């Protein structure tokens, strides 16, 4: 029997005009409410009728969190509702944060970037198909992972950071924002909180049912970029099956602060290999004080995959990670 998966189940729809109204509605509905930004992560859930919120809070009219503005201390302030296209094509982002411009420009397709928002891209859920098909796995509140059994199809799943759940974070912009030391500003009825990008994401060991610190009632409002570093070099590379549409298999985002030919400080972040963007602290420490050379890259690559464990179909991700980390140090520009 064919399964029809096109008609969204009915819900109450709100289009608040400001953050305060949105937060009030989100509070009122709690886990029965759903925040809608661009909707590109959302509608699959709705069409499959796996998520059936009572109310959808559409942020389309919340203009105060759309757009890019000069931030304090020479940084940039990006509203969560800013489209990925707007981020990728913004002159300041391109000149001062090429890492982010590139990441946003490599998401999915032009149409998806026109509509998908930076906030939604960061907050999006994992793409594990067992979970997205509505199977009652751990992430859905159940007690089993279908993707880590012996016969599971897990080519896209993780090589580190697993704890029962082996899904990966699919976002392209997330590793870039971690590498840029961005901050996430979250509004809720109890006030505003700020998280370092790296702390915004949580693994299944801490909470197997969510990818970020956000809970019902929390609205991501702004992404704050600190002033770009002096002498910073960047590297971003996304590996995917097709050059369009596809989610990353492995993505690396690096920032190297090089002075006198020597790496002073670094951020090396890899995504789609763990349930959260992985900041490679050991790599960063090991390459400090060295030249960004082939050898340093080689060493960094080896350190990056220490402790990595492949599932049945994804050992290629270990080699990919090793090589991408190497390149990200050798070829950063």
């Amino acid at each position, binding site marked *: 029997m064919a399964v029809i998966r096109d008609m969204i189940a009915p819900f109450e729809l709100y289009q608040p005009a400001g953050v305060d109204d949105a937060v009030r509605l989100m509070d009122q509905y709690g886990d029965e409410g759903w925040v809608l930004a661009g909707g590109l992560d959302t509608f699959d859930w709705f069409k499959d009728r796996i998520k059936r919120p009572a109310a959808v809070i559409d942020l389309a009219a919340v203009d105060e969190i759309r757009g890019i503005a000069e931030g304090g201390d020479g940084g940039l302030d990006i509203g969560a509702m800013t489209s990925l296209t707007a981020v990728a094509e913004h002159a300041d982002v391109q000149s001062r944060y090429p890492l982010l411009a590139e990441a946003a420009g490599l998401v999915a397709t032009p149409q998806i970037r026109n509509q998908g928002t930076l906030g939604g891209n960061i907050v999006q859920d994992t793409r594990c198909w067992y979970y997205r*098909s509505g*199977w*009652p796995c751990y992430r859905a509140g159940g*007690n*089993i*992972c*279908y993707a*880590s059994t*012996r016969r599971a199809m897990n080519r896209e799943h993780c090589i580190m950071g697993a704890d029962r759940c082996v899904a990966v974070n699919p976002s392209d912009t997330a590793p870039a924002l971690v590498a840029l030391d961005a901050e996430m500003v979250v509004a809720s009825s109890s006030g505003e909180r700020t998280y370092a990008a790296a702390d915004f994401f949580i693994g299944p060991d801490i*909470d197997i049912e969510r990818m970020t610190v956000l809970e019902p009632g929390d609205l991501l409002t702004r992404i704050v970029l600190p002033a770009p570093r002096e002498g910073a070099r960047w590297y971003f590379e996304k590996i995917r099956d097709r050059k369009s549409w596809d989610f990353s298999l492995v993505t690396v985002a690096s920032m190297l602060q090089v002075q006198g030919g020597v790496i002073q400080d670094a951020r090396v972040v890899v995504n789609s290999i763990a349930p959260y963007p992985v900041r490679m602290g050991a790599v960063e420490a090991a390459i400090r004080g060295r030249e960004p050379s082939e050898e340093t890259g080689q060493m960094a690559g080896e350190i990056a995959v220490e402790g990595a464990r492949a599932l049945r179909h994804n050992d290629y991700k270990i080699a990919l990670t090793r090589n991408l980390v190497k390149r990200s140090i050798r070829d950063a520009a």
Partner: protein
Amino acid sequence: MEFLRRALNPWGEDVPIGVSWDLIWAAVIIGAVFVVVHALMVPKKVATGEIDESEAKGLPEKLQRHTVGARGFHWSMSATMFALLITAFFPVIGIQFPWVTIHWIAGVLLILTVIYHIYHVFAKQDFWTMWIDRRDVEEGKLGLKAALGQSDAERPRAGKYPVDQKMFHHVAMIATLGAVVTGILMMFRIDNFLLPMNTYMFSDATWGWIYVIHGVCGIGLIFLVIAHVYFAIRPEKRWMTWSMINGWIDRDRYLENHDPARWTVDGSSQRAEAEGD
């Protein structure tokens, strides 16, 4: 309030996946109510303080109640039990941390402790001291009546363990063994270096019931631990608690609460050890 968490599996079967977490609060509330009611209602037992001097003859001042091994078992069990309860339930009520690895390692330690205990009980201790016999039933009835104010007959002295403690032991034993057996099976569902992962060892429904039993036993233990700790810190029971720390009870306590015929402490042979502690 629901008792089970349920799910539709990929084959469309409605299967249980675990016990409802609301029961955690039920256990905590029942535990608190039990403690409050007991503290307010049950009259303090007035110790007569009278002892039969003739029985005291030949007995040392301090009598050994728990050997070092028994105490080691008890505290090791207590530590692992707290670790298990905290790792299991704190994340559910909102204090989140990486719990699974700590949980199963504590579980394995608990299992080792219980194995040691069972061995010890059969090999070194007297298995029958925990057995509930006819005299315990009588003792229990009298105790209950006295508590309800229907009788002022004095409760007979117990063996090594009074009947309420024996009952507690058996309930705790069932809950612990339930959590242990299901916990071992659940190890096949998670990635660990002791047992191979075999998610499909049982049907979804069977797995579900295993999770339910694990949860029910765990939640039962919340209540049992509350009650147990409450009794341990009650003033009139503290001598017993101390004995779980230092190993001995004094002679007067022994004669006041225990029937030397039912629990014989061979003073002469144990004197040196008890005093040495």
